[in-house]
């Protein structure tokens, strides 16, 4: 198989102290969904940040669309077509919901009104609250704003760190639905999930990360079927 669309290969590094990642590799193909699961503190978020250039890697490389982007700054990666929703601090609290979405489209020069309409379609509550400062929203609503912001970028690859944390079941279903749809338009999705069973169900590929290293890698279905994985990481 040819080189994946986006790959963080053999990544090693951390926040300045001891290494958190130990030769961890994540990859996603064009139009596919890759899901990362693992215990708390395994380094999932760290790996995502590493792929996005928010962390200095001691070893390893990140390649995107055949190009080595290891040295690129996060904002350059955005320009290249990568979008990211961090796990925490993922909205502009003092700005209105609508402005949050506009900021998502910051690098876009074209008319983004229809994208915004789509986001409002997906999360109707946001439309209702579009003039309210995002910091005043409920936890789940904030999460919707965060995802909405990333969608506004129209990225080629979308990286989501626990997008469904705190989101109600109905919205979660919508969200997964939408993620599938997005993937089908050719956008790659790389996401971390603790709602692992639902996530792996729609995943083309799944990674189980433990202590900064790949423990299992397989298709989503296969991982779901693996009793060891189920017991230790998916809550039985």
């Amino acid at each position: 198989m040819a080189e994946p669309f986006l790959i963080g290969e053999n990544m090693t590094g951390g926040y300045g102290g001891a290494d958190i990642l130990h030769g961890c590799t994540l990859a996603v193909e064009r139009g596919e969904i890759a899901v990362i699961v693992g215990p708390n503190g395994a380094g999932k978020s760290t790996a995502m940040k590493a792929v996005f250039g928010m962390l200095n890697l001691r070893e390893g490389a990140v390649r995107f669309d055949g190009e080595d982007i290891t040295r690129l700054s996060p904002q350059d990666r955005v320009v290249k077509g990568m979008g990211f929703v961090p796990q925490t601090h993922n909205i502009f609290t003092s700005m209105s919901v609508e402005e949050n979405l506009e900021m998502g489209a910051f690098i876009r020069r074209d008319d983004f009104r229809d994208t915004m309409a789509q986001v409002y379609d997906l999360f109707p509550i946001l439309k209702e609250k579009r003039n309210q400062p995002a910091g005043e929203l409920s936890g789940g609503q904030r999460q919707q704003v965060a995802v909405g912001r990333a969608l506004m970028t129209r990225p080629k690859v979308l990286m989501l760190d626990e997008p469904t944390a705190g989101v109600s079941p109905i919205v979660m279903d919508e969200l997964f639905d939408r993620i599938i749809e997005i993937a089908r338009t050719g956008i790659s999705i790389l996401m971390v999930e603790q709602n692992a069973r639902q996530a792996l169900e729609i995943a083309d590929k799944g990674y189980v990360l433990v202590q900064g290293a790949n423990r299992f890698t397989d298709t989503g279905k296969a991982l779901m079927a693996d009793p060891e994985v189920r017991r230790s990481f998916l809550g039985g």
Partner: protein
Amino acid sequence: MDILNAFVALLNFVVIPGATYGAQLALGALGVTLVYGILRFSNFAHGDTMAFGTAATILVTWGLTAAGITFGPLPTALLALPFGIAATIALLLGTDRLVYRFYRRVKAAPVIFVMVSMGVMFVMNGLNRFIIGVGDINFVDGERFLITAKGFRDATGLAEPLALRMTQVITLVTAAIAVALLFWFLNRTRTGKSMRAFSDNEDLALLSGINPDHVVRVTWMIVAALATTAGVLYGLDKSFKAFTYFQLLLPIFASAVVGGLGNPVGAIAGGFVIAFSEVTVTYAWKKVATYLLPESLAPEGLMQLMGTDYKFAVSFAILVVVLLIRPTGIFKGKSV
């Protein structure tokens, strides 16, 4: 009873000076509030930035007048203003590159920025004294008055004078325009919004493709323009002295804070609150009362609520009271 005279007295000694001073503070406070709003620290060097901008403008003004260029009835300094602004932009961008950028990179706490700005303040302070000296400089020319005290008395036959200066009018108009522009810029334009986004959550701004260097650059440029304009207008109205500009910092901060830090409209409101509380609370009502009351009731004392000894105490007391009622300023400011 003489309502007209009483009214003119009030206008001349309370309303006009209060409004002018308020606008002067407001212009300064706009700069402070912008730095706070976008770069998230209280910039102690702002007073000295204003002084620098004014000094640069004065130097150019001298050059212009020496070359025989004036601005008709308006002060020549207004012609020189763009040059002063350019010089200040250069200074602030240089400062940012040399000083502040580093602390942004290491994500220093706001209080560190405050201390750093204090260091910058000291340096600029020395720089200003070096460039233009410590003396008092009067650089206003052109028509000073729109209405002179004597002219008014002669024309109306009233006992009370009324004076209105060119600089007062210019200051008020400029302040109004500046706040409108700034408000529009921050809330309506793409760059303005990206600046607010940057101030709200730097990391996320990065993830949205906002270029932090650009945001910072634009901020400093606006701040330079505001500071220089504020400084020049103040200097035209009063006079230029490096030390006074440093002292101006306190009321400017007070204005920005009561108004609500980070909010341009608040800066304007704050400026007027501070100015009017200084001017009105210690005002001696004797004159007004003498005009209004029948002769037999003419007051003996000054009819002052408080002596001017306590002018600052009173204006600060008002400030504290306002904050107790609205803990983040009149217009709900930020707090880091």
